[in-house]
């Protein structure tokens, strides 16, 4: 089964920038992405959120293009563009007609070296980012729980800081902070390009050489090892926020994927997450939502493809009349049941069927394929490993799933976060006939 089949090619430019191309000729369009190997995990205390703020500033003008012109040129090309920042990486993309690839590369190459972080533009954009924080986190009780969960589960590792940044750090951030970040990390040897679409690989390599090849390589700051001391005891926390329903999130420290050929446990953990919550007939839906009806919803998740440290999450909302304590017991009991009784061949087959079908369905989206390539590269693995990952997932045995359920779900490695819902103040609506305002 080929997740990264024939049709994917790679070349490294002389400045160290890698170019990954996949020919997909279904429609005359292309997705072009530039991924930088720098994310929120590379920040330090006091300037949390700067990776994401710089991502915003990347649209605010270079020595060759005024603020906003990047978006205007992409729009005129018929394209869509955006960017995203994660704990591990910062990525920029455009989806355009295939004949506009050269222009998109020229624009990305320009802002890789010529960015201007203008203090006036910065002072407006930092407000936009604060609004983004209010929208994504401050007014969303479950997001507050996850922020607090990460900040508690990790005491040393930088995954403890939110990608969006603490509000106080945003309030005190300066244009110089963003500029320093850019100068430190935005270099061709810290980036890779992904191109998927109606293209010829040799032409893409030629365009990449032309646009990116002339940017000089730069020395990057040393990356220090970022070890989290071993957790020795359960951690519990509560977040109070106005809400109706309580919410529970649990996270265990588990291994991440480091070597796709040699590792076994990360694949067994991924299959375990699938057995618990991978599809409509999985255990949580069947047992907790439909069976005992203890939960309105219950989920399990594991992503081992990370540059930092991996967590295995369980979460859920108890049904009315049931408590988070009862739900916690029920979620733990599901893990214990796997540890004691294992999983059936039928359950294993179902998870694998979902994985295989998912691989086929993913091919309907060039964007999803580009994300897959970018994500595994960002974790320090290689796109060629995508084949191995699928092979390894298919080779996971019932015994291995049982073994990881026994091995990793100890209280000493667990953090439990609870949303304690607070009543909303009662207030009444006001109506005005809205005179005087003219349109």
């Amino acid at each position, binding site marked *: 089964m080929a997740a990264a089949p024939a*049709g994917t090619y790679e070349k490294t430019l002389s400045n160290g920038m890698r170019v990954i191309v996949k020919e997909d000729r279904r429609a005359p369009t292309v997705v072009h992405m530039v991924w930088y190997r720098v994310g929120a995990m590379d920040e330090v205390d006091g300037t949390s959120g700067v990776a994401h703020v710089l991502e915003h500033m990347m649209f605010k003008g270079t020595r060759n293009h005024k603020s906003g012109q990047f*978006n205007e040129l992409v729009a005129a*090309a018929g394209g869509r563009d955006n960017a995203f920042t994660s704990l591990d990486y910062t990525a920029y993309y455009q989806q355009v007609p295939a004949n506009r690839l050269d222009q998109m590369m020229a624009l990305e190459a320009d802002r890789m070296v010529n960015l201007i972080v203008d203090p006036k533009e910065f002072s407006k954009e930092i407000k936009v980012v604060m609004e983004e924080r209010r929208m994504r986190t401050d007014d969303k009780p479950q997001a507050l729980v996850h922020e607090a969960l990460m900040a508690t589960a990790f005491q040393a590792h930088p995954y403890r800081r939110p990608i969006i940044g603490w509000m106080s750090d945003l309030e005190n951030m300066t244009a110089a902070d963003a500029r320093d970040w850019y100068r430190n990390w935005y270099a061709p040897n810290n980036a890779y390009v992904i191109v998927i679409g109606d293209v010829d690989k040799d032409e893409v390599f030629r365009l990449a050489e032309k646009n990116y090849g002339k940017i000089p390589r730069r020395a990057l700051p040393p990356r220090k090892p970022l070890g989290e001391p071993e957790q020795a005891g359960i951690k519990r926390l509560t977040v109070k926020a106005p809400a109706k329903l309580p919410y529970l999130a649990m996270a265990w420290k588990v291994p991440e994927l480091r070597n796709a050929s040699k590792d076994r446990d990360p694949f067994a953990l991924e299959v375990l997450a699938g057995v618990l919550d991978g599809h409509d007939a999985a255990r949580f839906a*069947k047992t907790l939502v439909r069976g005992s009806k203890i939960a309105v919803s219950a989920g399990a998740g594991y992503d081992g493809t990370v540059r930092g440290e991996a967590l295995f999450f369980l979460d859920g909302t108890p049904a009315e009349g049931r408590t988070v304590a009862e739900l916690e017991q029920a979620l733990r009991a599901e893990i214990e049941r796997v540890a004691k009784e294992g999983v059936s061949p039928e359950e294993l087959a179902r998870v694998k069927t979902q994985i295989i079908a998912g691989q086929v369905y993913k091919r309907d989206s060039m964007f999803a394929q580009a994300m897959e390539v970018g994500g595994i590269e960002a974790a320090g693995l290689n796109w060629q490993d995508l084949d191995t990952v699928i092979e390894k997932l298919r080779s996971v045995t019932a015994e291995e799933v049982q073994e990881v359920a026994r091995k990793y779900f100890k209280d000493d490695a667990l953090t439990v976060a609870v949303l304690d819902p607070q009543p909303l103040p009662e207030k009444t609506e006001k109506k005005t006939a809205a005179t005087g305002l003219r349109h």
Partner: protein
Amino acid sequence: MMKRLLIGMICLAAASLAQAQVKIEHWTTPAGARVHFVETRVLPIIDVQIDFAAGSAYDPADKPGLASLTRSLLDAGAGDLDEEKISGRLVDTGARLGGSADDDRASLTLRTLSSKPEREAAVELVRTLLQQPNFPAAVLDREKKRLIAGIKEADTRPASIGSKRFMAAIYPGHPYGYHATVESVGRIERDDLVRFHSAYYTARRASVSIVGDLSRAEAEALAIRLTDGLPEGGEAEPIPEVVLPQREKLRIPHHATQSHIFVGLPAMRRGDPDFFPLLVGNYILGGGGFVSRLTKEVREKRGFAYSVYSHFQPYRRLGPFEIGLQTKREQAEEALKVVDTTLAAFLEKGPTEDELKRAKENLINGFALRIDSNKKILDHVAMIGFYGLPLDYLDRYPKEVAKVTSAQIRDAFSRRIRPENLVTVIVAGS
């Protein structure tokens, strides 16, 4: 299954079928269901969507939520299968089911591998769900509780509170303005679902859309299979005409750090003669992402919001035009003033020639991006099929965009967005 898949994947690597056109075939089944089909053989996938004229516009006035519950309980038990058998069979085929009810439509989507055993098992299952659902009382009871829990939670969130209040305010007395409440869901009984299904899930109210790796003959057989056991039924009865609201401003107190602001009114229907002027104009006003006037004024120039947009959602009847943003509550009035001024200027003067040129460049040059996956093609085909739009809608799209003039935009906006009918909802204002 895995071996067959492997073969499919190898074929894929060699395929080179860049296309910017979509050929839609159309026919009607013997029972009266309309079918729209696009054959595309590159990926070993078939996507199917069945839309019934059974959306929330058909909810009884005292039971909003019925259309949505009926749709979501199709897989709660059907034929001789209980919900565990249904979910098990679905998962074993690798297929994915989706869909929900919106104001006009109740939709069920199926994505399956095109290999015969998987496809046939998946289609057989969907056939049973559509034609023989039995809505078990115990499952209904549980799902009502889950839905009510969701409503209670949503009614604490400013975005949800504002959106429901906005729809109720712009559609006074019209079913587009109804929404499910704790009380209305509490009143819904099993008999209601049974009656709703037998009255509205009928062949002549159905539109079947098929995209993917199968022949016309196979698509014909598939459409018959999905619909031949449905009662024929009659034409869908018309949804009531929309009466435009009176201008008003509603303030809903809330503790949130951000105000959620909604401005709009009912404005455009599917197949509307003003569709293209409103589409192009809205791109300029607030639809065109980072380059729209609203984004420039509210976000780029002032840093007032992360997200600000304007949007037309055409329905069978006049669907909503909505401007939305979230901003720090202390500056809500100031941000709203910027929105009002921006809209007023656009209504008064329309777009500049330069703005019009740029909007056309994006919409025309980027047209291929709207149809570059089976999923995107399915969305368009289902919309064309359900609303009875011309089969050459997609071919005409870039040409119609090219014809739009700034005078047409100004004219269409001034007729459709009248200040005397504009409703403003502010949740968590200053």
